[in-house]
């Protein structure tokens, strides 16, 4: 299944590198990535492919949250269906 990762926070060196390394270490494939800076605010979206078990999902999501705390940004991972159902008929 696909999941969306959103990263929000003050821009600094190495945010993308750290998130990508975290995912690569766990053999998670990134399908799409886009990033902008709005008024000094770092804003990244990623679409990744994860396997379908809850434990796996929770482990990655928790890991990313913790990584975000270390870097000083907010990282959130969500199943893509929450967005699909809300914005697509």
């Amino acid at each position, binding site marked *: 299944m696909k999941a969306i990762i959103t990263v929000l926070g003050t821009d600094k060196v190495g945010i993308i590198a750290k998130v990508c390394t975290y995912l690569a270490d766990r053999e998670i494939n990134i399908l799409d990535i886009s990033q902008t800076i709005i008024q000094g605010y770092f804003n990244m979206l990623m679409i990744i492919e994860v396997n379908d078990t*809850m434990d796996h999902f929770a482990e990655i999501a928790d890991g990313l949250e913790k990584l975000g705390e270390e870097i000083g940004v907010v990282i*959130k991972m969500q199943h893509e*269906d929450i967005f*699909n159902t*809300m914005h697509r008929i």
Partner: protein
Amino acid sequence: MLSRMEIVETNKMIKESNLDVRTITMGISLMDCADSDLTKFNQKIYDKITKKAENLVKTGEDIARQYGIPVVNKRISVTPISIAAAGCKADSYVSVAETLDRAAKEVGVNFIGGFSALIHKGCTPGDEILINSIPEALAVTDMVCSSVNVGTSRNGINMNAVKRMGEIILDAAERTKDRSCIGCAKLVVFCNAVEDNPFMAGAFHGVGEKDCVINVGVSGPGVVKRALEQVRGEDFETLCETVKRTAFKITRAGQLVAQEASRRLDVPFGIIDLSLAPTPAIGDSIAEIFQEMGLEEAGAPGTTAALAMLNDNVKKGGVMASSYVGGLSGAFIPVSEDHGMIEATEKGALTLEKLEAMTCVCSVGLDMIAIPGDTPASTISGIIADEAAIGMVNNKTTAVRIIPVIGKGVGESVEFGGLLGYAPIMPVNKFSCEKFIARGGRIPAPIHSFKN
């Protein structure tokens, strides 16, 4: 392909506007637990509830984790105990309430509803026992919610039941007076009660329902308010369109959660309840929506029209977003659970009479209203009768959840804590209806109920 805007919009709704799924409520039938021995009956219902709902809380939390949307409450509703326990040889059902309480604590839900009786035409012996057990049952349990249906559009209003419920409410208040009369916050008197309501305190699992079912209540007053901020000063067409579009998105999130919960628990999906339900949190208030619409305070002239419009457009937007809509599906206006309503009451903008008018155009009646503790039982019955009449004549659900605060009067307030919030005590009309209530009997069904 999802756009950045859509992803950001959803996450803003969750983070900044308190979008959440208010409750996943599992309805469980207790019909197959009947036993003439009360102890055996209690054992059977405990076993059934704890087995069926064993994974309910964990599943709710898993879904919240995976989709990143809070699922605030996980709850259970059961077959009205007056029916399920009717076969028991017993003169009190307090032990049944205690069993429900234990089962709820075991599975980790925060409320269990269904200590209920449907007496809109009359009482069976089981109904009598249940009603007499209500005050004590609510005093000795923490999680159990009770409801009584005293009228329907098809059958009229059982005024004997209305009279009795006035007394029961006072008794429930008296028995919990050391805890802000909390017993009354867990007791609802209905007209036209629905069988698939996921919201407490009025939830019970109707007799026409499946053995086990998942009902979901969505919420999001904060999201509606935020959306309306974008159309400030524009006309009613724009206002209504904005509410509709927002309600659609909120309900879709609820539908997703409901389907996932149903799939993961292997329990059929019942309905989505489209009610806007406030919480005491800032930014999660129905009164704030009225202010955004252009009213100085909730209760100002225009409030009933604003509420009618809000309620109607939430439904119009929500109906298309879900395969089955049911439950109460209306805007809730519980005074103690909405900080904007509390402020309006304290400023004198919102009165009991205005609230009554508002209940004509939305569910679910006079909800979480604190009144002076010396209010006579007959006056409480009169308030119930008025609400029931509104429900009966307008073919809608109405309810009364009113708290006579023992030892306190107008100008003071009462704190319930948590989602139940706090409430300033509202003045009640001092003129008596004692002789009216004392008449007894039934009010016949209204003429327009004869539709066959």
